[in-house]
């Protein structure tokens, strides 16, 4: 934790740089989605746009969490506490998606249509 005034002064520079990166990341996200030369994968929205967009967002979120929210030098207890939340959300989103992707219905049931 940057607690002394000198350290904080140094940190302010970092905050500015991170802010700049966040701006650029946002612009990049929009370009990927709307500007044809930046379009990855097939024309229009497809899984590659999704992966790229979410990757940029995750990088931005990581920057906010680690620099602005000081997670890069936080106490161990915070990692445990917040980490438990992250684990739980992965379990929620992952397992529901898994359940959605594995329905019991198959062509056998639907062949009548």
């Amino acid at each position: 934790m940057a607690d002394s005034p000198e350290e904080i002064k140094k940190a302010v520079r970092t905050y500015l740089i991170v802010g700049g990166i966040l701006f650029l990341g946002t612009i990049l996200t929009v370009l990927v989605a709307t500007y044809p030369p930046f379009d990855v994968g097939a024309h229009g929205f497809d899984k590659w746009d999704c992966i790229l967009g979410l990757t940029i967002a995750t990088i931005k979120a990581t920057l906010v969490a680690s620099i602005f929210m000081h997670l890069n030098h936080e106490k161990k207890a915070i990692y445990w506490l917040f980490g438990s939340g992250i684990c739980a959300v992965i379990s929620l989103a992952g397992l529901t998606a898994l359940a959605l992707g594995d329905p019991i219905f198959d062509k056998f049931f639907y062949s009548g249509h």
Partner: protein
Amino acid sequence: MEIPYIVTPRKDTGLFNSKIAIWLFLASEVMLFGGFFSAYVFLRLGADYPWPERTLPVLPGLINTFVLIGSSVTVVFAWASLKMRQWRKFQIFMGITVFCALIFMVLKAIEYNVKFHHQAVRLSDYSIMEGHLGFEMAGDKPVLDHKGNKIEENLIYVETSKLTFNTVRFHKPWVEEFLTEAEHKNSKIVLAADVTAITKEGQKAPEIVAKAGEALSIEFLNRLQKIHLAARSHNGAYRTAALRGEWVKAHAANPGKRDWQIASGVNIDVKALAPKLLDEISTVAFKVDPPTSFDFHPRDIKEADGQSTLRDGTVVDGKLEASPMVFHHVDAIDFQYLVMKAVAKGIDPEVAIQNSWLMKNSPFVQQAWKWHLAEMDKLKKELAVHHREPTHKELYRLGWKDLARMAEEEGGAKISGADQFKEEFFGPNYEARGAETFPEFSLPREQVGFAAKFSPAWNTYYAIYFTITGLHGLHVIGGALVLSYYLFFGKKMYLTNPEWLANRVEIGGLFWHFVDLVWIFVFPILYLM
């Protein structure tokens, strides 16, 4: 008694209390938004209709992202200033942060407002029309309802001759509306026939509770309700007592038998009980004299020719009038859903579109579609160079930008500069572009499959969009309130215990960063995917 570790961190954990608490709270917030994002994934992957891809205006969302990122930087600066004991700088940075929150909410409000005034309708054949509904006009002045509001041309009109209210369930505001509407149209709502009932035990002949011709009023309905409920309680008590008596007799007559073996023979002696019972008045009928046209919101009425029913149980007798849905300005035509249904049935998309009701009945749609097909040919050729194909949305949807381009190419109104910029926020500019770009269209009621504003009701995409952004907006408001509290009422604490205030600002800032962090995901997921 002093609770320790409010300001100074505990040695072994290295944390002060509120730091732990805020991170726990954020973990819980992660789960809350995690629930919504899981719902988004679930709804999108499981959607049985064409998911509206990249459908929101990007510019306001983009600006809002910049605003939130900027405020995230300033809030951390504000905290740093406090740590360095620079009150003035803290005020400036915190002021900017709160101002950013304000801009964010204003932009959000504009975005919401545009949606809530934009109408969509899914026809029975699954083609979709979007636009702006007209108002009922008398000459060039809008007709106002009894409350002074303009009347949107999406109502169901019934030439009403008789109204039958449920005395318990009637909805008071609707009764008031009937009354003022009738007065407005010089009609009277009066009791159709005498209401007669036995209201006291032992009464020989029914007494006249109300005479035919008595005017409708809420007090009157309340009076009948009271009589009805009293009779209901009275009769209930007698019937219960009678049934109890019957069971005592039945048990005595059938020793050792189970209830279910003798239940069919245990009945109340209705004849013996009848003299003691009162009359319940569950409904009361009024005639409308002369018959008058009342309007109803489509969601409130189950309409049918002859007899319609309102949601509160009121029965409306009368002739159903033509109640078209009138678009003052049509600004999009969408065949995506129709094509999806057609393909599922093995029908060629183009055939299905040509056979759709809109193509058969609207010259404008025919003309626009012809133009669109030519555009698509061009686009296909362009994309073929890169071995690519147009998207489903490009192929089968004519958005307002397409319609505007078409009109411009064919010599319609052109707008530019500030007007064009404004369109990015407020949507199509009907006044400047005029009726040749966004024409009027009247859709007969029987063609309406499902209609809604661009509200949560329109489809699950808008539902999740409004829920996530609305909840996020509430977080922005909450965070801004807390931060402005530190800004405006923090001076005293700054002078007595600046470290404590710095801690508090850090906690508030952590929450603010989290709000920003959620938006970092919300923006691409809801605006760009």
